[in-house]
């Protein structure tokens, strides 16, 4: 009997080597991680993080709802409310102090597509080149 329902290939979320991961999924949980022997990057090899380090995905601490600070505390809010507040405040600060009064930090952990849109937001929508990420850190 197979111990998984399906397999999905992805890229390891840790270092810059970019190892191929083959996730074995059962009941919507990652139960095993392997890698293909013919992949040119890692040839089936994985380190301790790649093979055993994906459990965080299922951790109960995962954020599941937008949060807004009210009276000093972060409280759950709807997407509509949270995005509305962010758009309103960023537009207001931009109108008062100019686009360069806003700075954006993108992510070396996010995909190319996420990152592309972050810099597009900075340059096209806000109008600033104040965009960086942790490449230097």
């Amino acid at each position, binding site marked *: 009997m197979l111990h998984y329902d399906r397999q999905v290939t992805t890229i390891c979320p840790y270092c810059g080597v970019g190892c191929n991961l083959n996730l074995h999924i059962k009941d919507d949980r990652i139960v095993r991680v392997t890698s293909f022997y013919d992949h040119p990057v890692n040839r089936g090899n994985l380190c*301790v993080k790649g093979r*055993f380090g994906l459990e965080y995905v299922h951790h109960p601490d995962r954020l599941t709802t937008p949060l807004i600070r009210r009276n000093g505390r972060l409280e759950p809010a709807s997407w509509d409310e949270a995005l509305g507040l962010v758009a309103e405040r960023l537009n207001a600060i931009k109108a008062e102090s100019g686009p360069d009064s806003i700075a*954006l930090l993108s992510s070396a952990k996010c995909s190319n597509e996420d990152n592309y849109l*972050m810099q597009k937001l900075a340059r096209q*929508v806000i*109008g600033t080149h104040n*965009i960086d990420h942790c490449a230097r850190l």
Partner: protein
Amino acid sequence: MTNSIGDMLQARAFLIIGSNTTEQHPIIGLQIKRAVRRNGAKLILADPRKIELAQFATIHLQHEGGTDIPLLNGLAYVILDENLQDDEFIATRTENFEAWRKVVEQYPPDEVSKITGVPVDDIVAAARMYATNKPAAILYAMGITQHIVGHYNVTALANLAMLTGNVGVPGGGVNPLRGQNNVQGACDVGCLPNVYPGYQKVTDEEVRAKFANFHSNEQPPAKVGLTVIEMMNAMLEGKVRAMYIMGENPALSDPDSNHVRRCLEACEFLVVNEIFLSETAQMADVVLPAAASVEKDGTYTNTERRIQLAHKALDPPGQAKPDWQILCELAKRMGAPEDEWSYSHPSEIMEEIAAVSPIYGGIRYERLEPVGLQWPCWAPEHGGTPILHVGRFTRGLGYFTPVHHQPADELPDDEYPFMLTTGRLLQHWHTGTMTRRVGGLDYLVPEELVEINPIDAEKLGIEDGDWIRVSSRRGEVVARAHVFDRPRPGLVFMTFHFAEALGNVLTNAALDPIAKIPEYKVCAVKVEKLDSPPE
């Protein structure tokens, strides 16, 4: 990397400097071990610590932190002195050689030995080994770049590779090992203050016109924006009022973290996209729940410039969403044109990336199965580029840039007599947001252990496992000591994985004036034994 992970097995020699490869890029580390053990490749390791690779090294140059340039110029001195350079490569592929040579001649091995602490014989042997075993690959990481001379450290490495003709050949090259899974891609697609996607300069009028035509808006002024450390300081000065952070944790990852916290506190409006309530998210005004990488389709570009496809394996928890969706919704609410922010799938975003950045010009999702493509990939029929600078450098001729030794910003003194260097461990990742929530990894390494040499520990009466206080001009950290001879005497090593004992409380935010990278790898600290464990 100029070269590919796969062609390293062809190297006859490696010069690895400022890279703890087996812990930080473990699968490339495996390749190195295999090349040394099975192929008999020579390994020159330059590192102030006896990292695991020291067991595989033919020569270990345990130089003092912050003395990379004299060491590398010293190697070049010996190569020239013994006439081991590649004259044909220098003549046909490079320029400014003679001017550079005059500077290198100021770094004879006996002088270099005094600055670096490396024996003269080892400098000579390493230089011969690198120059006479070809092809030879240079590998480096943050141990080279995180200095106020980081830019020039890299230049010194490029000079060595050109001197010996180790550029544009399989098994050679100058290979930076990029840290995060998509730090290469985040740079490629323009998340830097000086370049649009594809490294097109924001100050170039033609580039600006191209992006102005592509997007229905005026482009920002032709002025480079702020880098991360500059943003932090600008918040404290009130010049930056709002910050939007996607999936990063500067409260722990940036140098001098007490100062960074003051900067983030000064920020009037802080928004964070995150998968966990990180130390930075805890300070935010709005937190938006994001999907993890296994919960969305997307591409990631690895250290060898390989753009690879990741498939969605799971649904995000609760109301969490992929960052690209969050950004589209936010942009539209801010008034951006609907048609320029409506994508039904990330593959459509990649089509846009390909349209605006020539190095990604041929990237399409359907071409990325099963193993991806390495940029530059100029057109849909282009097969990608496994090795850069073959036959010709991007700028034409390779330029020998003279580089001089410049001491670190903060060196040990009577009050703070030890040098601190920081880094990461195999079992944890960066600020621990992910790995400290993985039971097995946290079991392997549950706490910060400050590495200190037995000679130093004995002087201070510290035994393995004792509680110690490490302090710098910027703060103090309490943790237990790990006494063993991995760091050279006078050096202590800490990580930034553990919020409760954070190395970055101590680190120095002095910046390289060109690369704007902070000098994490050298600062001055004092070490004291605690009589009792902290409460």
